[in-house]
């Protein structure tokens, strides 16, 4: 069959004109959608915020900027809650607040000792408390008594409780010994603790 024959064949002619129409339609559809994507969609997907229309990207950027500004303003306001003072004094105050309070520290240690003592009050007795702010080092010595043969177990419980305290950065465990005296079994201890800065208020 020649080319002339094909062109004059009615079914082939219908197919050719249909494919032409389809190509024209799809091209037009693509063109319209591309126009919409580039010109209409950005216009209709903008969101009004405080009198201006913003795209989603602009909105997210604005949200981030505002969040930072609010955080800064909150920090500034916190500082303004206290009277403004000279820099030297404020630095000293900050240094004092950042260091450990020996008062709170020894109170908390008494609570931990009481918790470790359990049913036997003052089984864990802290006899010597030494705190040095340089290096945040704490040394405790004392004795566990009045709990019979369990003195070492109670001491181990005290060490575990101490180690779990948030202000303890590093703890050098004591030598666990049980000694016998006329009053019964007891376990003397010396514990050295390195404190975590400003973990106790």
């Amino acid at each position, binding site marked *: 069959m020649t080319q002339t024959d094909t062109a004059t064949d009615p079914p082939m002619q219908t197919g*050719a004109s249909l494919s032409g129409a389809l190509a024209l339609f799809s*091209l037009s559809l693509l063109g319209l959608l591309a126009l919409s994507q580039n010109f209409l969609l950005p216009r209709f997907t903008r969101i009004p915020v405080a009198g201006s229309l913003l795209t989603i990207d602009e909105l997210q950027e604005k*949200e981030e900027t505002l969040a930072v500004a609010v955080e800064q303003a909150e920090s500034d306001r916190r500082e303004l809650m206290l*009277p403004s003072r000279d820099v*030297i004094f404020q630095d*000293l105050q900050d240094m004092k*607040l950042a260091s450990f*309070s020996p008062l709170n520290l020894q109170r908390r240690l008494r609570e931990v000792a009481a918790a470790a003592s359990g049913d036997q009050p003052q089984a864990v007795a802290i006899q010597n408390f030494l*705190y040095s*702010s340089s290096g945040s080092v704490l040394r405790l010595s004392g004795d566990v008594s009045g709990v019979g043969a369990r003195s070492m177990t109670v001491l181990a419980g005290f060490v575990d409780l101490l180690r779990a305290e948030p202000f303890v950065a590093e703890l050098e465990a004591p030598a666990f010994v049980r000694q016998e005296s006329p009053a019964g079994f007891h376990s003397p201890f010396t514990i050295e603790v390195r404190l975590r800065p400003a973990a106790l208020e």
Partner: protein
Amino acid sequence: MTIPTLVSRLWTEPMTKCLTACFCLIAASGLVLSHLRSINEVGQIGLPAAKRVSALEQRLEVLRQQMEATRAQAALKGDAQEEVIRQTVLPATAELAHILSLFDLLRDHLTQDGLIRSMSEVTVGGVVPASGQDGVEASPISVRFGVTRPGVDAVLLFFELTGFLTVGDALSPSEREQLLILTERENAAGLPALEEFLRTPLLTYARGSQAARDELAKNFGSDQYVSTLERIIQGSRLPQVRFLLGGTFGVALQDAGLWPLRFMTVDRTEITPREDGTFELSLQLSAYSRAAAAQ
């Protein structure tokens, strides 16, 4: 065959037209999906973000207004506190007489209260530049006390309060933050009342703590506010401040011109029990003054 001829030939081919149509339809469906995604993002991301942005803008505006009001209030009150700090808390010289008067008064009053049994001599070392603090000098001080158990707490509290002027100073940053959040939730317009409370001189608070708390609480109606305020205060140093300075000791400090207390830090603390049931409290302190260059 030239290129225009080839294009023209290709375009007239039914197969080419079909392929073009297919390609265009695939691309169009991609664009339709993109449209749907954009419209979906408006609902899912854009509108919630717009709400958050509006809330943040309002919050920023409120904060700015609060800060302006606070600055205006502070400007009206002047710099009286600065002068007090320069004269007594952080003076220009070591002023040993001032420091020793403090120890004398502390010993006398806490001995009367049965908290201190004895006090050693007070050893004051030479003035040295304070480590890590520019423009400040420190005088090292060593002292030992014979104290009861409550006496340990009282003496340590006394040195902890040195350099504190107001209620706000005696609260930790987290306690102040809790009060701020509580007040904002209850009534943001009441923040000036909270500021006023935090600026209350510590000695005034120690003598009339209930009045200061009532003054703050009257700006807020709910029982919940009052009970939470009470809980925060009870968990802070303020009850101990009232215990230590609320009586004759506070009055004596003020009469002797020793309040506000000289700024000191406790560098080393040692507590050792004694046979009589009391404790030996050994302290190494630093009393601060301004270095000549910083004046």
